[in-house]
């Protein structure tokens, strides 16, 4: 874990504050979330108080402070998706995964995130699992989609932070 972090910080020698958000993004890419240790270390590297780092990190929706599940489910709640019934889709996903938005299931298999708009409005309603889009989802098809990931072997590549 720490080696990942050092590698990220080494890419930003003598960095100033404008490098803060890119650094946090890379740390999250590597580690899946922003751990307390990571935030403290980033603060030392940039010579900024930890409170300032948290101030910035908590402002933006992108940053997570808890590990993500092996499968990351994003439910789009954009206008087009809303008009086509994404509220019901979200409820169905919650029921299916038995977690609330922003949570990770106890077995670490799934995490659920609500996103403002994925930008695939033409295909509404959309959910996105590990970066793969599923278009025209219905409350009935949610179960099938989730099951298709459940059966898959655990993923170990870190590219789902799309």
């Amino acid at each position, binding site marked *: 874990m720490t080696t990942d972090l050092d590698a990220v910080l080494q890419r930003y020698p003598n960095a100033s*504050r404008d490098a803060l958000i890119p650094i*946090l993004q890379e740390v999250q890419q590597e580690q899946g979330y922003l751990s307390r240790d990571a935030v403290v270390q980033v603060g030392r590297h940039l010579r900024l108080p930890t409170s300032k780092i948290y101030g*910035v990190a908590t402002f*933006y929706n992108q940053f997570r402070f808890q590990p993500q599940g092996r499968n990351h489910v994003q439910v789009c709640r954009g*206008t087009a998706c809303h008009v086509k019934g994404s509220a019901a889709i979200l409820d169905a996903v919650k029921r299916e995964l038995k977690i609330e938005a922003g949570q990770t299931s106890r077995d670490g298999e799934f995490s659920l995130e609500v996103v403002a708009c994925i930008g695939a409005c033409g295909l509404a309603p959309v959910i996105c699992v590990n970066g793969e*889009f599923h278009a025209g989802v219905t409350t*009935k098809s949610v179960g099938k989609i989730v099951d298709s990931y459940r059966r898959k072997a655990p993923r170990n590549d870190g590219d789902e932070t*799309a």
Partner: protein
Amino acid sequence: MKLPELLSWMVDGEAVDPAVSRQHQQRLAELRREDVSRPTVFVGAGTCGLGAGAKQTLAAVHTYLDSHEIKADVVMVGCVGLCSLEPIVDVQLPGRSRVCFKQITADKVPALLESALAGTVRDNLVLGQYRQAASGIWPDVPFLDEHPFFAPQTRWVLANCGVINPSQIEEYIARGGYGALVKVLRDMTPEVACDVVEQSGLRGRGGGGFPTGKKWKFARQSPGDQKYLICNADEGDPGAFMDRAVIESDPHRLVEGMAIAAYGIGASKAYVYIRAEYPLAIKRLKAAIAQAEANGLIGDNILGTDFSLHVIIKMGAGAFVCGEETALIHSIEGRRGMPRPRPPFPAVSGLFGKPTIINNVETLANLPTVISGGAERFAALGTKTSKGTKVFALSGKVSRTGLVEVAMGTPVRKIVFDIGGGIPNGKAYKAVQIGGPSGGCIPTQHLDIDVDYESLKMVGAIMGSGGLVVMDEDTCMVDVAKFFMDFIQRESCGKCIPCREGTRRMLEILQRITRGRKRERGIESLDRFKSVLHLQSLAETIRDTSLCGLGQTAPNPVLSTLRWFRDEYEAHIYDRVCPAAACTELIIYSIDADKCRGCTVCAKKCPAGAILGAAKSPHHIVVDKCIGCGCCVDACRFDAVVKQ
């Protein structure tokens, strides 16, 4: 560094040596794919296409070609804009023009390729053929530009989208790309460039609609050794995706536009602030910047002049408010994305305290057209105050969804009913929501207004970034207002009180309106009526006193729906009924005893345990326990659950 030979030949005209000239001509024709030497298959692989299964389609194409040992080129193109018919696959045979096919999922690939490569076209899959002078046309195949979706459009910004391979700079150059940059660097001083843009009447496409040339001049006149250009690609409006599509499908147009803008304002550094939610767009843009750098079209001393430009990509971290100029600047500086009072405007003191111009992706993508076609040609299209074209992202309850580029002044009716094909399933049109959370609704009686900045303002909407979400009779306008208010209050940065507290209070009012009576206790029903009285005045206060554009426009969805759909509000308030049956708490579910077979599926699925009944006898829903989730409707195979 030397200009790529081809570009210099295109700009300078005939080369001295006719043999070289012929060579270039040939290469150009090849790059424009006027004709192909062997069959070519194009797969639309933008985010929309991939969402609809283009990845599997692409794999199926490769499998088919390999297994039949057919030598053919496979090209990944961007998005042509007709999202609802994705995945779109084009086939071009030697000596024949390119034909476009719709909804080619992986399972349809073998049959399609078999017939298409043999020179026959299956009617049910064909969308149309391109108009190509050099190659033979297909008999009995309609032209793509006559298709009802494409015919009323004027494609300037989207001209290359879905046509060219976005990762090849040569294909962009072959279609006239970077010609405008050469023209501006050779023939125009930065002042002239600003003048041309001002004369063209180009206005910011991101929301406010401020004249672009005028804005540039402010930055040009501000003293400062370092000036910045920022491209705002933080397309946060839910319901808008044109910037993403342009960057994915034609990234070099944006790079060229940025170079022109930077030259005009005298900036040597440009930032692209792009949403992290658009990984494919970021990838394509990075590749485009690298190619342009390798060819000397950006970097140091571009084309031998003393103009230099370095482009840096910054990923946004997911904050809607960062679409606001000063908030965006704070975010690039590594701070919380909170707006600050203006003046000083960013054009005077922006990023790191230096003069900064922030332009939207679509604004910048218009610049090559403005420069190469000239200000007059650009200004000839459109209305008195709004010139050129506008790209709209058409989505919601409409038959054909996708990206639509029309001349300013096109009636809304034409966009929704001619291009979009009207409302599916025989439902009635109710409204179209334009401009995202800052915008408003256009009801039936105003469908004939022309889209331009001023006329939209008159009906209480704004151009915004251009998201058009169509709503039909099943959409509840109070619910839509609640949806936007929920979005806005979550995205409010919290700096100024009217926005932070006011939007929250407005959301609570809307929640009370849409709440069922059974969840109301004691004094709550009095609160409900009291708050209804305050809704409008609260909205007006927020509009008049907020710090930034987000807050000032935050009440628009409520004000607009109140103006046009007051009757729906009244039905919710007085009768506790949702006419569109969309507000879940106001819906009453019941079971039709004649249709129910007593299969018990609904009772098992009900998360609230509200359905009672013995097996093989009609079931019953306990209204007090029902949470209105609608699970029983989905579960019932006999359509016995009735919604009221």
